[in-house]
């Protein structure tokens, strides 16, 4: 190799540098392989697991289609059919669609943005294992006849204890609530990864569209998923303890569930679609060898879709009797959201028009996506029109619409992505010849299966019926749908055969850039991602920087080896991607795995009401997570390191420069969204049942909330003082004063409501829900504060090494502000309105 001095690091690189990098990033061997945390391994396992659930839920769909192929069929009885459609929808939405796109993010994002890994790789591993175990046990409930039966949206009153006794619905509530927590963990990882670990020079303008889509996807999860977590918690509280949130006889309202569920449920559709659109925006330029047309407008469309989708939830509730004016807002938003989707479709078509199209299997799946998704979008605009929706509500027309949207908008792009990115993860690309058959079978199958359902629905066939009478005339259409479903299954089976034959996972000897694509994930790579971290000068750096792949692989760019003696990656500024510091990354270990296993066990045992074993598993999970957290904040007194280009960067950061600060701020947004939903629930129940609310005279004395507020504010002041002593004197012991103050504040809140029965009315239930949530947050704040004090005691926290304290401080102040807002609502609002 010739000597080169025009790069950030001169070539050739010293002997042994690459070998050291390989050694550090190699996955563990033997049994310890299960502790692997590298994104390329976790990503592939994540995608594989999501695909497993796709196949399992697809098999359930085939059983349903066989049942419906002929009228008055008795293959499946009504009870089992209820379980089948509930599990099919639930597994497809919660265990396949969201995890699949999140998994693609885990797999692709670090390489695509030029990072060595995601910033919290152990969190990815935790999220994956929690999802795998929780998902498998949830699915297995079907074989014991314990699967839920209330439909994938679980509307009460059908799902309350009165109409659904037994533990079937509890499986859904606890299982799905738990899996959503795993999705939120992944979302925090994505946001910090995209905003803080991009390669130098990769400004927001040069960021790949897939990274944009994953950023918006993750932000949407942050705001949407807490609603369903709260909803599942409220319904579980009603089922377990009789707190009547949804019981009209006691001032509750079943529609509260629908509001909370669909506040999550409609954005969920776009949460699935946006990453898929992001994948298409990566595939189309590569397959046409031309940059994406209207790049800026595509990014704007992603952002606009993201926020407008939060104004659509009531379009699932058009038939519930809401005022016309309310419906009009949601009808307008439902129509408006079609515009940004249309912008993207036109951008893809324009890119095809201006480039030279290589008609390979990924291209075929993108064509299929365009046709099917546009048709689903058009029927979406139809059902956004209130009077039309009233006609087709709960008919097979809606089934046709949602399958066109979800299969077109997510499944076809995912297949395109698997065909497109398999050479990135595998020694061989998938077969082109077989791929065309797979596409053909799936494309024809989808249209044969679902197009007739529009007609079946217009003919009046309702959803979720296990059979129908022969004289209704629906048999021919249903038979066609069944034939189409089996064609899709044949396509998927063929794909699996080809995948088993051709996919051989390898990071270092992958098939490589077979499409001649322009983005960074196609750089030569290994378990450490790319050998060095490039300086990016355009959106398609591999097209515009001719020697980039060679120079990166030779180690000529930033951080060509380990700068810190361990795993590390660059942290850059969120907008301009300027290098700021070097993050020391963790090595594989057991705590995340043990934490995930026992967290899953905790929730699952709780479903069976096995409280003591559940508590034991919960304790093990907490110990494992604390053990994991103990290693999170490494020593701060380490000298800056050289990354090349004359840059010497620190290896420790606190405050807004720290990745931990960003994660904590995002976690607080999750919490704020959950608490916002709780405040909404309170106001909603008051609006529908004012009679359940007490008069001002019947409320607890004003002394209770005032004393509670005083304790909370005093605790915040103590935490603030601890911050000062840490900066000036190197210790945070005043934090200990905050602990009893927080306990006293919570005790005051509980004492104020001691005469209120949570089972008597919706008012009592929602006030106690505040106590539960406030208690949870106070408990977490206490644990964080005790953890910081323990680290201080162990000599692991000082005036520079203080991330643990900063996180505890942020969370503490947030908890105080949130609890004060709750106090204002519980004690102030009734006084105000009475």
């Amino acid at each position, binding site marked *: 190799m010739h000597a080169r001095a025009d790069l950030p690091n001169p070539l050739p690189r010293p002997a042994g540098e690459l070998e050291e990098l390989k050694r550090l990033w190699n996955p563990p061997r033997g049994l310890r392989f299960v502790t692997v945390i590298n994104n390329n391994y976790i990503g592939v396992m994540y995608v594989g697991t999501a695909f497993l659930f796709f196949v399992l839920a697809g098999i359930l769909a085939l059983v349903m289609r066989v049942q419906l192929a002929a009228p008055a069929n008795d293959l499946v009885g009504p009870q089992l059919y209820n379980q089948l459609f509930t599990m099919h929808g639930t597994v497809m939405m919660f265990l396949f669609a969201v995890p699949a796109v999140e998994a693609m993010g885990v797999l692709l994002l670090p390489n695509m943005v030029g990072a060595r890994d995601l910033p919290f790789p152990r969190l990815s591993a935790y999220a994956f294992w929690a999802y795998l175990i929780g998902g498998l046990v949830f699915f297995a409930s079907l074989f014991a006849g314990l699967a839920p039966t209330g439909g994938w949206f679980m509307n009460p009153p059908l799902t309350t204890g009165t109409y659904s006794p037994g533990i079937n619905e509890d499986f859904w509530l606890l299982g799905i609530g738990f899996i959503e927590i795993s999705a939120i963990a992944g979302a925090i990882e994505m946001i910090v990864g995209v905003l803080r670990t991009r390669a130098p020079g990769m400004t927001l*303008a040069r960021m790949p569209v897939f990274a944009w889509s994953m950023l918006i996807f993750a932000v949407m999860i942050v705001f949407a998923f807490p609603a369903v977590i709260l909803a599942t918690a409220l319904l579980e509280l009603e089922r377990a303890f009789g707190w009547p949130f949804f019981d009209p006889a006691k001032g509750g309202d079943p529609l509260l569930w629908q509001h909370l569920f669909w506040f999550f449920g409609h954005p969920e559709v776009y949460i699935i679609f946006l990453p898929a659109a992001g994948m298409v925006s990566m595939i189309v330029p590569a397959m046409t060898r031309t940059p994406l047309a209207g790049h*800026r407008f595509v990014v704007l469309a992603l952002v606009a879709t993201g926020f407008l989708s939060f104004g659509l939830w009531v379009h699932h509730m058009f038939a519930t009797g809401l005022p016309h004016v309310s419906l009009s807002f949601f009808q307008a938003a439902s129509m408006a959201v079609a515009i940004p989707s249309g912008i993207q479709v036109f951008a893809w078509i324009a890119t095809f028009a201006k480039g030279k199209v290589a008609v390979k299997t990924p291209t075929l799946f993108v064509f299929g996506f365009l046709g099917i998704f546009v048709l689903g979008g058009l029927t979406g605009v139809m059902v956004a029109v209130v009077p039309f929706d009233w006609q087709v509500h709960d008919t097979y027309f809606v089934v046709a619409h949602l399958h066109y949207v979800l299969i077109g908008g997510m499944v076809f792009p995912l297949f395109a992505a698997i065909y497109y990115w398999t050479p990135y993860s595998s020694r061989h690309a998938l077969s082109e010849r077989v791929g065309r058959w797979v596409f053909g079978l799936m494309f024809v199958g989808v249209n044969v299966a679902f197009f007739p359902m529009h007609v079946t629905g217009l003919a009046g066939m309702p959803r979720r019926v296990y059979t129908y009478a022969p004289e209704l005339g629906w048999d021919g259409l249903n038979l066609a749908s069944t034939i189409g479903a089996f064609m899709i299954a044949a396509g998927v089976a063929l794909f699996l055969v080809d995948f088993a034959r051709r996919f051989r996972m390898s990071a270092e000897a992958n098939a490589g850039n077979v499409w001649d694509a322009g983005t960074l994930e196609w750089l030569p790579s290994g378990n450490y991602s790319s050998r060095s971290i490039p300086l990016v000068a355009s959106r398609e750096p591999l097209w515009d920087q001719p020697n980039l792949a060679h120079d990166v692989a030779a180690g000529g760019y930033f951080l060509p080896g380990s700068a810190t003696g361990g795993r590390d990656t660059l942290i850059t500024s969120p907008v301009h991607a300027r290098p700021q510091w070097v993050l020391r990354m963790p090595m594989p270990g057991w705590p995340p795995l043990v934490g995930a296993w026992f967290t899953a066990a905790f929730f699952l045992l709780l479903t069976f009401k096995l409280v003591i074993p559940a508590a034991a598993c919960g304790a093990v999970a907490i110990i494992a997570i604390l053990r994991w957290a103990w290693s999170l904040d490494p020593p701060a007194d380490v000298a800056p390191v050289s990354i090349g280009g004359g840059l010497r960067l620190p290896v420790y950061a606190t405050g807004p420069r720290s990745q931990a600060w960003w994660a904590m701020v995002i976690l607080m947004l999750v919490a704020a969204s959950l608490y916002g939903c709780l405040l909404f629930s309170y106001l909603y129940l008051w609006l529908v049942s004012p009679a359940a609310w007490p008069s001002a005279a019947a409320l607890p004395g004003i002394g209770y909330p005032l004393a509670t507020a005083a304790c909370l504010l005093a605790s915040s002041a103590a935490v603030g003082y601890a911050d000062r002593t840490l900066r000036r004197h190197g210790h945070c012991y005043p934090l200990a004063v905050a602990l009893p103050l927080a306990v006293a504040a919570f005790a005051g809140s509980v004492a104020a409501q001691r005469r209120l029965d949570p089972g008597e009315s919706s008012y009592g239930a929602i006030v106690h829900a505040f106590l539960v949530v406030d208690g949870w947050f106070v408990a977490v704040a206490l644990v964080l504060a005790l953890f910081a004090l323990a680290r201080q005691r162990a000599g692991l926290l000082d005036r520079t090494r203080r991330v643990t304290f900063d996180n505890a401080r942020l969370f503490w102040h947030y908890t105080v502000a949130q609890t004060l807002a709750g106090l204002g609502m519980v004690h102030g609002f009734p006084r105000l309105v009475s």
Partner: protein
Amino acid sequence: MQTVLRMSAGAIVWAIHFGVIYGLTAAACARNFAPLVPWIVGISGAVAAAALLILMTLPGDPAFERWLTVGVAAAALIAVFWESIGAFVVPLCD
């Protein structure tokens, strides 16, 4: 962080506006204050539009981020206008 917030500002204004018109009109309908609905929607629409127009005229840098800030605000403005129309053309609280 400031740039990220500024780029999101249009969406935040839209969200607040949407929450206000939905929440207050629902409350007005539930408590028999239907005549207030057009006023609620009109006033909150005007306030949101003014905020978005101000956002669109604020100076900013670099070019892409500024473009996106204006673009998101413009999309929000269109959505605010479009969603407000219903209050003036449909029966209010039926």
